[in-house]
């Protein structure tokens, strides 16, 4: 058995269709040797939480560029906790104004990536902070 791979779900909550970042990152994670599940656009927080649990992922990366992150990101984190999956790390990215960071960290997100973040920087953060669960 080789080293266990990081299992990541890239998810697009809400009605936003701006998926360039999510697609680019999914491909980048795959190239970095992670196991990647990309949900496609228009997932409800409920669908994302239950898919994350079913797929037994280590981390969920949420992407939103519509401004609805204030509602959608905390909703996913809360549902995971409620369903006993609080050990799945939740991170987010997109057009997220700095004044919203605190609200999102308080809701349980572990990192927020905004435009200008490099692919390698994001991969490094994942490798450092995400330990594949047994």
């Amino acid at each position, binding site marked *: 058995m080789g080293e266990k791979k990081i299992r990541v779900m890239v998810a*697009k909550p*809400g*009605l*936003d*269709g*701006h*998926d*360039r970042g*999510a*697609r*680019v990152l*999914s*491909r*980048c994670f795959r190239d970095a040797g992670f196991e990647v599940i*990309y*949900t*496609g*656009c*228009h997932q*409800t927080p409920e669908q994302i939480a239950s898919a994350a649990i079913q797929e037994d992922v280590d981390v969920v990366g949420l992407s939103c560029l*519509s*401004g*609805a992150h*204030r*509602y*959608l990101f905390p909703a996913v984190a809360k549902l995971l906790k409620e369903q006993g999956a609080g050990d799945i790390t939740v991170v987010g990215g997109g*057009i997220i*104004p700095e004044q919203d960071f605190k609200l999102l960290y308080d809701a349980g997100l572990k990192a927020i990536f*905004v*435009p*200008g973040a*490099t*692919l*390698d920087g994001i991969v490094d953060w994942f490798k450092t902070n995400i330990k594949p669960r047994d």
Partner: protein
Amino acid sequence: MYFAKEVLDSSSEMRRKWEDEVKKVIAKSADQKPRWSTVSDLEIKRLYTPEDIKDMDFARDIGYPNQFPFIRGNQPTGYRGKFWTFRMFSGMGDAKTTNERWHMLLKEGQTGLSTAFDFPTLMGYDSDSPKARGECGKCGVAIDTLEDFMQLVDGIPMDKVTTSMTINPPATALWAMYCAAADLRGIPLSKIGGTIQNDMLKEFIAQKTLMCPPDPSVKLISDTVEFGAKHVPRWNTISISGYHIREAGATAVQELAFTLRDGMEYVEDVIRRKGLAVDEFAPRLSFFFNSHSDFFEEIAKLRAARRIWAKAMRDRYKAKDERSWWMRFHTQTAGCSLTAQQPYNNVVRTATQALAAVLGGTQSLHTNSLDEVLCLPSDHAVQIALRTQQIIAEETGAANTIDPLAGSYFVEALTNEMEEKAWEYIHKIDEMGGMVAAIEKGFPQLEISDAAYLFQRQIDSGEKIMIGINKYVSDEATPIPLIEIDDAVETQQVERLQAVRRKRDNKAVKKCLDDIKTACKKGENVMPYCIDAVKSLASVQEICDVYREVYGEYRDPGLY
């Protein structure tokens, strides 16, 4: 272009001499980088000369304005009779707030309106749908029923100003509202002018505002084309859009090829499904392109687009009416080129992109505001963006003469190269069985993903530069005033919708919705029934739910 043999001979002799000089200089000090390419990674030569366009024929390939192949535009007078339409895309919060912004823009010299709807409206959900939570009024204006719409167009001279609506899956419902609003104000449908985006193929390819599967989506579009051809002659019933394809990460050639192939798909569908002759509807097809940062690539792309379309309409679809050969298009500067870092730099980017659009001969233009990378634009930012267009129009002289870059060795060679590469894609998609079939295979989606990934890698490695992102980075934050849409908009909009539901004649609404359902099942044109339905105060979602029920829902397959 025809050059006398002596010209080409002396050119090649001069070339050899120049190439020797280049080699000597490079031997002493290398170029700054080994490879020079456009933002789309199209390799560019150090110099272009008559040799690069020696096979061109002036009459066949360039010609005059208002003459085939229309590379120099449709208007015989260019911008002298009328500048392009200054059309700023705007919408925010509720209908009243957006209406105020529209009046402000018209007062500031804007000459056309363009509507940004919020995500629930764009996706065919009402403001009180659970799916709309957190999105109401955030990215644009929330419209649920004709009551909202009447407020949106309050005081707008609908028979004078043309209005564009960026709306796709629910286009029939929103266009029906525009028609109904005109009717209620006593303006005949023959007098209203505008555009609905109504281009679902690029939604499957790029923007992902999705509702029903491709085939019924195209059917609804053909309904609007037919209805417009018969009853609303000044309306552009589709705006075949490359903008979103480019924003999703496509190269300029992909934007050009996929957009034009989408246009061909619609032409074929209307002919097949509706039995209309091409000249009955083709003059009202319109296009929408991106103007990105690579100046000459964009100009070449827009020129190539006109020539490809004219050839396709004349030779492939046998259109006889010259207006069917015209490509009329709107352009928007590239949102994806803007940076949150050092946001004032965005004014400069937008200005050069807008200038490229004008030199490429656009007929309508939106210039992005400097803060659009962060939020909806503030009044001040949108005013600078509008003034950018006005400065280009009135101060730079760019509008003085038609197609000023024609005959440039470089621009003509690049235009030819882009056209050639676009046709390669178009023929490849033909071989796949058309664009719907190509989309079902994931072909355009994955081509775009490849390009987007390559570009991001090139940014990360420093091969491509974005100032403020990977070069001339500043640690200092530049605070700019940001617009925030109050969460209270959602509560108020939900209350307003529910009040409408209480006061309207719900039996009449149901009857109208049943009529739409019957029309869908029989394959009839839904437009007349949609107009009746919105007049009965049926909501956007209620109409879209009929489509979802009859045609089924399409889910994003999540290709990457």
